[in-house]
């Protein structure tokens, strides 16, 4: 099964690399959101670092919603989804492959956005990098676990593309809260302080990766 | 204390009104559907 997952991951990433324009758009959107939030909040220089976690995660969530939809839309437009389903890949493998792809895409976007937030909001993100990377990974995993499942629903009809954020946002609140609180704690005092928030993220990830594996088949059937 | 009575009244009115409106909506929809069923059945038989 894991060979299948890697195969899907490699294929998807190769497609993303070839269509660099849309990947670039995805990253630029993240950057833009950070700038817009910073301008709208307009904090005094002393207050700015306090806002960094919130700005980060709000930007990630919105960028992520727009970007992950593309992954499936791309396939529908080339009618590749039919091809993929015709091959004997089981839905669980397909789901995990797509999940991995989405996590990588999020990480690529965050690689640019996180340093940017550090610069714009004067937050010392570099000193806590390992802890921060763990928080980001857990958050990405949680976000992508549900987003991958729901994005497959938009393959069938137009109205649902608008619906994706509407359906996903309330479900993703724990990821948002956990991510922000964990990032805050990490910036203040390293790992220990983040225990509660990390627990939330880990629990979310565990529940919804399993749920995704079990339910994905229902979403791509027919 | 007596102006808090207003809040108490508002809350319970909201609950009863909400329930009443929902039941009324369901009853109405039910009648429309039953009529449509009768109408469709007639058209199929003819």
């Amino acid at each position, binding site marked *: 099964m894991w060979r299948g997952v890697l195969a899907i991951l490699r294929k998807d990433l190769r497609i993303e690399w070839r269509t660099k324009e849309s990947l670039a758009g995805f990253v630029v959107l993240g950057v833009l959101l950070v700038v817009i939030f910073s301008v709208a909040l307009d904090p005094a220089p002393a207050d700015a670092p306090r806002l960094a976690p919130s700005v980060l995660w709000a930007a990630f969530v919105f960028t992520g919603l727009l970007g992950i939809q593309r992954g499936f839309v791309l396939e529908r437009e080339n009618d590749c989804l039919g091809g993929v389903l015709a091959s004997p890949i089981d839905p669980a493998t397909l789901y995990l492959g797509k999940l991995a792809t989405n996590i990588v895409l999020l990480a690529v976007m965050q690689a640019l956005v996180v340093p940017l937030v550090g610069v714009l909001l004067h937050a010392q993100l570099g000193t806590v990098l390992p802890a921060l990377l763990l928080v980001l990974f857990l958050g990405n995993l949680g976000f992508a676990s*549900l987003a991958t*499942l*729901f994005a497959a*629903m938009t393959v*069938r*009809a137009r*109205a*649902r593309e608008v*619906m994706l954020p*509407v*359906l996903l*946002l*309330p*479900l993703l*609140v*724990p990821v948002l*809260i*956990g991510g922000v*609180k964990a990032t805050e704690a990490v910036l203040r005092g390293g790992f220990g302080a983040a225990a*509660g*928030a990390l*627990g*939330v993220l880990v*629990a*979310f990830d565990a*529940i*919804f990766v399993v*749920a995704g594996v079990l*339910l994905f088949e*229902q*979403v791509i*059937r*027919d | *204390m007596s*102006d*808090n*009575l207003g*809040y*108490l009244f*508002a*809350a*319970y009115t*909201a*609950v009863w009104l*909400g*329930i009443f409106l*929902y*039941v009324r909506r*369901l009853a109405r*929809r*039910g009648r429309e*559907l*039953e009529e*449509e*069923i009768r109408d*469709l*059945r007639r*058209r*199929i038989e003819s």
Partner: protein
Amino acid sequence: MPLLAALFPWAVLVLMLVAQWLIFVVVPTEAQMGIVQRIFYFHVPAAWAAFLCFFVVAGASAVYLWRGSRAADRLAHASAEVGVLFCTLVLVTGPIWARPIWGVWWTWDPRLTMTVILWAIYAGYLMLRAFGGADEAVARYAAVLGIVGVLDIPVIRVSVRLLHGIHPAVLTNKEGGSGLTDPMMRTTLYVASLAMLLLGGWLVALRVRTGRLEAEVAGLRRELEHV
């Protein structure tokens, strides 16, 4: 059986009126919050009823996905609608209660926050079913959403505790845990809860019937095309 079905709505009404009488006439006034505290006796049962409805949505959705039962699908849809109704009532009575007690219409305390999120999740479910189109797949998508929503409940509950809420001391009062001094208060709460539960059951049954009629209409329409 049909006698039971005919009597049930009256039983619901009687029980609701009994509860209302207990709440307005019998139960003693709570010491700290005064008469406004009586809102609690519908506010909390409505929340419990909403939760139960959402659990039914998840269960019925699971049955639909793994057995293909259309009746289960109709039950899920009906339960979601009634659940959102109860959730709305919680979100309306909550602020009405909060305003005289704490001077604000809204607080981001864990319970209210969770109720808003839950409302949004299942309002989304209803929107998906209403606007997702006539495609067969929509029912399956909604079922997935119904299950995911319930799975999210424990995580949401834990995560909102991480937010700044209203002052804890006031919070315990609102939860009613330390506030229910008189045994009559407990009894009133239980009677009101039973009344809400049965009311919910009746509303779901009505809504399921509507769903069945809609299915019949759809079937007849298809038959008409082939005639």
